[in-house]
């Protein structure tokens, strides 16, 4: 395959295909599920193709030959390639699961177009090369995500969705204000041009603060994680899986891009602050997860905690392996968390509720789902050989390298706390069963998908070395990362 030819095609396809399918699903709700499956089948292949194409050198493609600063430029390096692939794979799994989950539900006709929009938005974020496009894609993502949350349809779900929407709007506007300040200073929106040395914007500190704060809200960083637990817990399980696995990662990805681009030389103190908040998130989220009575809330708070790890990137940004660590962590957490939410969804569907104390009833009936939850939980704990283990390993190594080994203690403490809440759940599987009958049947595809995801998360560590090399190769330094 010729990378220069196919790369752009695939990149465009990755954005356009889900969009088109979404519109089709919207127009023909009867076939919505099929469109979803087409998307699920198509996207992993396309993403894999793109990853192969950008493995050697990043791809930059101006849509309609309108170059920067005016035109819309698509950009993909191996980091985005990996995230695109992960998105496609997880979405495919969720698609399979959702078909069973929504089999008899009226909302399935609205689910498919929204999820396809969501996918398009995610791909858009991972492929955008300018800060304004990122804003648009982030908004599209938020709208799709909020609508998906609202599919839960109960009052609690709608309230959670509303709060999610307002929070993300405020955050987007804050980001957009920052973008306007940036543009005023630089005269460009392109990430690569913004990163060029020697340029200075007006009020760069204000732009940084506005954009970072906005993205922090969207990324649910402690202490502004308020919208996340309920939104993730009240949404239908496949939606929760997508939200926790992918959607919260998108703003973080943007922040990451900014940090290795325009913001590469911000004062270290900013990074330290974000790192400290990350630590607080790890501890706080874990502690909250420990005290939850409901399984999905527990998993949601676990997401709050796990996001904290990603923010450890910022104080350690100058260490060599830290980007690898974060990339791996995003992947590993996405797989594991999707598995956990899907498994929790199965339990919820089977029991009709997700009270942790009564989990013993499903232990005998949903062994595969529980196993998936357990394996995914083990991954979250950072058990080897999971991707989380390797990611945490790299993170701690980066902490040692920076001479700031204090961060490593938080990483380890977080692992132990996560063990605490995971085994609170798993431990209940080892209780004598009270009753065997009742509850909805869980189809095989619904049981297998979370297990598959958990397994992927577990085995991710085994391919960590090539992955890390992939991430490394196009990103040799920090400031000049984003190619032309």
């Amino acid at each position, binding site marked *: 395959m010729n990378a220069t030819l196919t790369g752009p095609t695939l990149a465009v396809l990755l954005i356009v295909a889900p969009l088109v399918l979404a519109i089709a699903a919207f127009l023909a709700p009867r076939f919505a599920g099929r469109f979803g499956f087409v998307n699920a089948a198509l996207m992993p292949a396309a993403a894999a193709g793109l990853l192969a194409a950008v493995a050697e050198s990043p791809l930059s493609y101006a849509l309609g030959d309108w170059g920067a600063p005016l035109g819309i430029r698509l950009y993909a390096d191996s980091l985005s390639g990996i995230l695109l692939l992960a998105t496609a794979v997880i979405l495919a799994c969720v698609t399979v699961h959702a078909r069973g989950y929504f089999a008899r539900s009226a909302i399935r006709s609205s689910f498919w177009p929204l999820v396809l929009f969501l996918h398009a938005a995610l791909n858009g974020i991972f492929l955008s090369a300018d800060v304004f496009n990122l804003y648009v894609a982030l908004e599209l993502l938020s709208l799709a995500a909020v609508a998906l949350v609202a599919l839960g349809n109960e009052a609690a779900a709608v309230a959670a969705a509303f709060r999610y929407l307002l929070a993300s709007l405020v955050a987007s506007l804050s980001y957009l204000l920052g973008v306007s300040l940036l543009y005023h200073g630089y005269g460009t929106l392109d990430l690569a041009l913004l990163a060029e040395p020697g340029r200075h914007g007006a009020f760069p500190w204000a732009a940084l603060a506005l954009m970072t704060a906005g993205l922090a809200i969207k990324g649910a960083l402690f202490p502004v994680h308020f919208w996340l637990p309920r939104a993730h817990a009240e949404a239908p399980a496949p939606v929760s899986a997508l939200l926790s696995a992918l959607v919260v990662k998108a703003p973080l990805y943007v922040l990451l891009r900014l940090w290795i681009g325009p913001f590469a030389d911000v004062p270290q103190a900013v990074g330290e602050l974000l790192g400290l908040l990350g630590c607080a998130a790890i501890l706080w989220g874990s502690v909250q997860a420990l005290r939850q009575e409901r399984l999905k809330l527990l998993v949601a708070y676990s997401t709050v905690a796990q996001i904290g790890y990603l923010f450890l990137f910022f104080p350690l940004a100058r260490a060599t392996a830290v980007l690898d660590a974060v990339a791996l962590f995003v992947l590993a957490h996405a797989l594991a968390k999707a598995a956990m939410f899907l498994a929790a969804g199965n339990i919820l569907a089977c029991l009709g509720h997700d009270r942790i104390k009564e989990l013993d009833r499903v232990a005998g009936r949903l062994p595969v789902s529980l196993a998936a939850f357990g394996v995914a939980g083990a991954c979250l704990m950072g*058990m080897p050989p999971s991707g989380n283990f390797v990611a945490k390993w790299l993170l701690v190594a980066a902490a*040692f390298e920076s001479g700031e080994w204090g961060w490593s203690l938080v990483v380890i403490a977080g692992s132990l706390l996560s*063990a605490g809440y995971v085994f609170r759940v798993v431990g209940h599987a*080892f209780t004598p069963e009270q009753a065997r009958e009742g509850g909805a049947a869980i189809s095989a595809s619904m049981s297998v998908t979370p297990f598959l995801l958990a397994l992927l998360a577990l085995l991710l560590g085994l391919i*960590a*070395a090539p992955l890390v*090399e992939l991430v490394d190769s196009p990103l040799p330094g920090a400031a000049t990362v984003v190619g032309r």
Partner: protein
Amino acid sequence: MSWPELMPLLVLASSFVPGLIIFALPEDSHVLRSTLNIGGATVKLLLVAWMIWKAGAGVHYEFRTELLPGLDFVLRSDELALFFVGLSALLWLVTTIYAVGYLEDSPHRSRFFGFFSICVTATVGAALAGNLLTFLIFYELLTLSTYPLVVHRETDEARRAGRVYLAYTLSGGALATLGTLWLYYVTGTLDFATGGFVAPFVPAHTGTLAGIFAVLVAGIGVKAALVPLHGWLPRAMIAPAPVSALLHAVAVVKVGAFGLVRLVFDVYGVGVTSSQGLAQGLAVVAAITILYGSLRALAQSNLKRLLAYSTVSQLSFIALGAALGSPVAATGGIVHLVHQGLMKVTLFFAAGNLAVTLGIHEIRDLRGVGRRMPWTMAAFTLCAFGMIGVPPLAGFVTKWTIGVGALDGDMGWAVWILVASSVLNALYFLPILYSAWFATPLSVWPEERSFPRAETSLVLLLPTLFTAGAALIVGLFASAPYSPLEWTQLIVGKYFRP
């Protein structure tokens, strides 16, 4: 992939694959499950025997793949690894047979045997690990795979024990990970090397390396049940007898002790540990553990809990031997891996036989049981004497060798620890033996089941007798060719070669 590379993987697979299949089996497919179990165990034993055979000819199998940039996943069959693998493979076969008999009618058999197999896979992996990272991976896998076994009974007490077990072992794993990473940061490598690999870094990082040693000992010492990290072990005795055997003799604590041995010999090296005072520190901790465990055992009224405290005590002989800094003591320590395994597995089997056959759990119910179950109690007696250190049993060989080595390494005080431990062991084992053999039995046993062919089920009795016999034989023929002691001398010789 070439054949020599495949070999360690095959050894792992011989229990891992059956384990996975067993998970999927329905509860009542008895025959297939047992076939898989015992077949896997047999295949593993044969493979290990083959590796040992080839090791005699100087062939070592190694599997290596890159896990992280610059860090490999390594499985290697060096002599020390084979020694431990041999022990695990053999005892696993025996324990599996026993477990098949023990859990005949209990619920969740598939789950049990699945995790059982994974547990052994983890043990074998830890044994074959060629660097600290690989060891760590299996160390953690072992933690996770034993948890379901500990809570297998599903009672509140079992789950409490499981929680405590996790709290301890996961914290230990976290510490071990931290130590490993730190060490990697300092030295840039983690591959086990004869004589250790940290020596060149000692001048520049004396304090740091000592700190790392402490962290690693604390991390690995949790599984090795060093006081005060031993709290999980006596609680975990709530698990079924085969699990106790696995915890106390074959797998968990053994991996801990083995890890300490690796740490002293292959990571830091004897020279560094001795010259930096690290070994002495470890020896003191081990000595305290030995005495404390025995003292606590004295106060127990439950047979298995007593045995658990006895494990706490006995296990530290391995660390003690490794830390005394002399080849002879090291021989004694390492050979105790096998010796303690054989003796303790027998004791737990016997305790299991008593529980299954007569419903005996408390020591006070043991009165006169020697007449009802002479073979079981004979095996128990033999190994109790072995624990005390009475010759010619395995325990004696250990204590003698460590003691002689202690003088060799100028740590003569260790002899007193050995003697005190023997006396304390006698103090808690002899009353049991007296009660079993000489006291008049109670009129009814707590919960008697009768077996037509022997005092108890043959599937339970034969493994017990086998391991008891082995505990006698490895002591009696300690100096015979291919005996564990001889083998250990060969291993240790490598580490102490000037």
